[in-house]
């Protein structure tokens, strides 16, 4: 009914910033709001997998296949390619994932990855200005997003336009031109994107929780960047960033849809083979967050009406063996109306919504439980209920039926949330960023193996006070400090 109800469960840290939140505001991942787990479609076109692996594709080395998806490397420059055929509709998604995100930024150039993403749409060496728009004219769903670990550019379009799209992406990979006049206008656009996020109490709190939880690691700052860094970005710094990270050996392209594998690969070879490998190795991001040795707390107080509690705990990188257990735990805690925290908080009249955001990332991340408070309820009371539930699980574990229910929920959502070529490519995009795209195809199998002992163990290991960062968003009536 109300907009607040609809947004009530949205919770994300530095939500992937996009070049465009279109008129209908598409979420590039078709992500649903309740909590955050990985949801992947189930593939059963196994015979296509077998056929594809036996064929040789000149210029490419076959790497591996999993779940109907085939990985190749373009030998000339190290470009990674994922292909999956789906001939149900005459549509294809072509997605380019650069393995660079805001984790590759330093103080003084926060937000660079994202501004660079915006600038990539302006001018490219061999294409007219704003050529990207021509794909919209052809009916494409088009966007780009930047997040902590990656930047992606994608089009879902009628298959007859795939070649033009591949050519364009190959050209702007190393042929993008960065002009000051474009940066001058685009900086204001990006700043307005930042301002829109600041209007939202949830986003504001989320930003502060991460900034407090991480003190050294670049997950500290939001992908949109700090405002003064946005305003002071220069063509030179963006060009330097581009020349460091935008190379084919730092990229995976994904092609899902109505195209034969051989044809897809030959198009990729035709346009991308001429793009050289990086002259220097892509610099790794080596910073590790120092061990947290005590609870951290913060308050964000702004004029308004909304009150929120957020309790975060550090969780391991995506490829860690505990990730799947944490996903199941998060589902048991707050996914759906029969979940523990929903019953205690929402049915208990203390909150209008509760959710757990525990999306795993390339490096150590955060699992944050958010609750929007019912009017008149105190933050401390809600925090107490959440911590009490954590304590209960750490002491007594969870039941087998809770685990089965969580697994069923995750598996069912996987089935239909991966609907269409874009959703598949979008899911792969996130797992490429994690460090291994097969996280996606193997996810369900690993979820199915999580047991009660795993849940109790990870709860005791990660939901501990010295590992926590707790934030309150407090609606303030005092506006005396606000300048209009």
């Amino acid at each position, binding site marked *: 009914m109300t907009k607040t109800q609809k947004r009530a469960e949205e919770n994300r840290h530095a939500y992937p910033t996009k070049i465009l939140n279109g008129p209908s505001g598409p979420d590039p991942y078709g992500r649903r709001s309740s909590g955050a787990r990985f949801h992947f479609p189930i593939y059963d076109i196994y015979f296509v997998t077998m056929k594809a692996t036996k064929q040789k594709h000149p210029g490419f080395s076959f790497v591996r296949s999993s779940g109907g998806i085939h990985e190749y490397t373009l030998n000339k420059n190290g470009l990674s390619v994922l292909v999956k055929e789906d001939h149900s509709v005459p549509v294809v998604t072509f997605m380019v994932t650069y393995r660079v995100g805001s984790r590759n930024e330093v103080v003084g150039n926060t937000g660079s990855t994202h501004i660079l993403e915006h600038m990539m749409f302006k001018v490219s060496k061999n294409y007219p200005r704003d050529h990207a728009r021509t794909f919209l004219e052809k009916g494409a769903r088009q966007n780009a997003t930047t997040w902590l670990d990656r930047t992606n550019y994608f089009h*879902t379009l009628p298959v007859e336009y795939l070649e033009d799209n591949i050519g364009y992406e190959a050209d702007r990979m190393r042929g993008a031109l960065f002009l000051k006049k474009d940066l001058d206008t685009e900086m204001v656009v990006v700043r307005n994107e930042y301002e*829109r996020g600041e209007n939202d109490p949830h986003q504001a709190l989320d930003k502060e929780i991460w900034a407090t939880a991480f003190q050294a690691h670049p997950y500290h700052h939001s992908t949109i960047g700090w405002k003064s860094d946005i305003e002071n970005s220069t063509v030179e710094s963006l060009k330097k960033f581009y020349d460091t990270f935008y190379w084919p050996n730092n990229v995976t392209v994904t092609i899902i849809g109505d195209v034969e594998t051989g044809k897809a690969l030959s198009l990729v070879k035709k346009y991308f083979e001429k793009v050289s490998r990086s002259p220097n190795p892509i610099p790794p991001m080596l910073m590790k967050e120092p061990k947290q040795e005590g609870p951290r707390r913060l308050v964000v107080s702004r004029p308004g009406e909304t009150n929120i509690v957020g309790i975060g705990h550090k969780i391991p990188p995506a490829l860690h063996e505990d990730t799947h257990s944490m996903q199941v735990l998060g589902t048991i805690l707050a996914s759906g109306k*029969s979940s523990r925290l929903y019953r205690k908080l929402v049915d208990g009249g203390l909150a209008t919504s509760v959710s757990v955001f525990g999306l795993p990332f390339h490096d150590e991340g955060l699992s944050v439980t958010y609750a929007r*408070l019912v009017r008149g309820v105190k933050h401390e009371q809600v925090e107490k209920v959440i911590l009490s539930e954590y304590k209960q699980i750490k002491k007594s574990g969870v039941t087998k039926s809770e685990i089965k229910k969580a697994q069923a929920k995750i598996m069912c959502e996987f089935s239909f949330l991966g609907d269409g070529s874009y959703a598949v490519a979008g899911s792969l995009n996130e797992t490429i960023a994690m460090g291994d795209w097969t996280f996606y195809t193997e996810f369900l199998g690993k979820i199915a193996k999580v047991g009660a002992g795993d849940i109790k163990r990870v709860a005791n290991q990660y939901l501990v006070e010295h590992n926590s960062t707790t934030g309150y968003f407090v609606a303030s009536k005092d506006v005396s400090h*606000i300048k*209009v």
Partner: protein
Amino acid sequence: MNKNRLISSRIEESTPTEGVNLFSMKTGLSDAFTLRGSFLGGTFFADKENVCVPVVINALLDHGTRKKSKKVIRDQIEKRGANISFSPGIFRNSFVVTGLSKDISFLVGLLAEELSDPAFLVDDLALVKKQILTDLENEREDTESQARRLLSREIYPEGHPNRSHSLDELVELIKKVTLSQIKAFHKEHYGLGDFIIVATGDVNHKELEWMVKKSFSGWRTVKSGIPKIKPSTPKKYFEKSLFIAGKQNVDMFVGIPTGIDDKHKDYNALNLATFILGGNFSSRLMTHVRSEKGLTYHIYATLNGATDGRDGYFLIGGSFAPELFKQGKEATLLEVKKWVNVGINEAELNSKKQTVRNSFKVKMETTTALSSTILANAEDGRPTRYIDEYLDEIDRLTLKEVNSAIKKYIHPDKLVITSAGSIK
């Protein structure tokens, strides 16, 4: 004749029991389904004393039935990994069911039970009212929602279905909702008659017919129909702003009632014209106000509120930093005036026709988009073939028709502009 019958030829339809229209389409999604539907009984049918009754009913539908407690129902749904949700509307309330195909029979049965036999317990009423009241109070600081609400109240008279109540009004109305009002409204308006179900995914129409007949026949039939709405007429140019402290972004809306619904002969022409103005990233507004002038992250134009015989409205929405609001507004109005006074050209028209046709192909790759499209078409009372024929209608539009529609319905001297944020 449309030689590209992409969708309609794949849709099956029937009336498995009187008062229910069933549509289904099998897609490539394996083992899962989406079931989407609606029925008349929204806020417009409530007594004027309390239009919020349907909203509260909607929130109570998943709080148990007379046979099963809310705990039991929620466990039954979620152990199957499924989801059943309800949304209130102005004329039509809607529902969405998602789950694995093996559970579809059970879930259809549960849906019917929740709709026809809700528990309506006094404790749940108190709980739900508290939650809705909190959401309403929180909405006071939402700049986009507030500006939009303000616009609807300025361009439509009281009693018009497109006019929103103020938050103050809604808060008072929610507080006053009683259990007897809820039960009375449910008895009068919840039933078969204009009930639509659309199922997509891994579904079988014959099996669905059997499930729907088994679960829904025997439920009462209710009389319903949408009354004729008196169209609103545009006022003089007018601006209104709401100050909300501590906000870094201002949301602005520009609007005017068009006086026509989506079945009017001019509607498609006006809709295509509006798409050219602000329908996607390559539209005039995004090109000039965002890309060239760098004034906003997001600006769009659309037609809204024109279904079910309502006279709809033209709408522009945009966001600006407070210090750029005046410039942003002026840049927006400049584009509107050019669009009205000069019109669009042949190249734009042909390009956007192609966009509409191709983007339809792209959108229809997902089960979700398919079910929404089929449902919207059915709610509009159009034959299924119209889903494809619509593209032919767009192709036939002429430049003269489109430019005439702009001039006929959009008057810059009668636009209403509302905004909300930290500006005085």
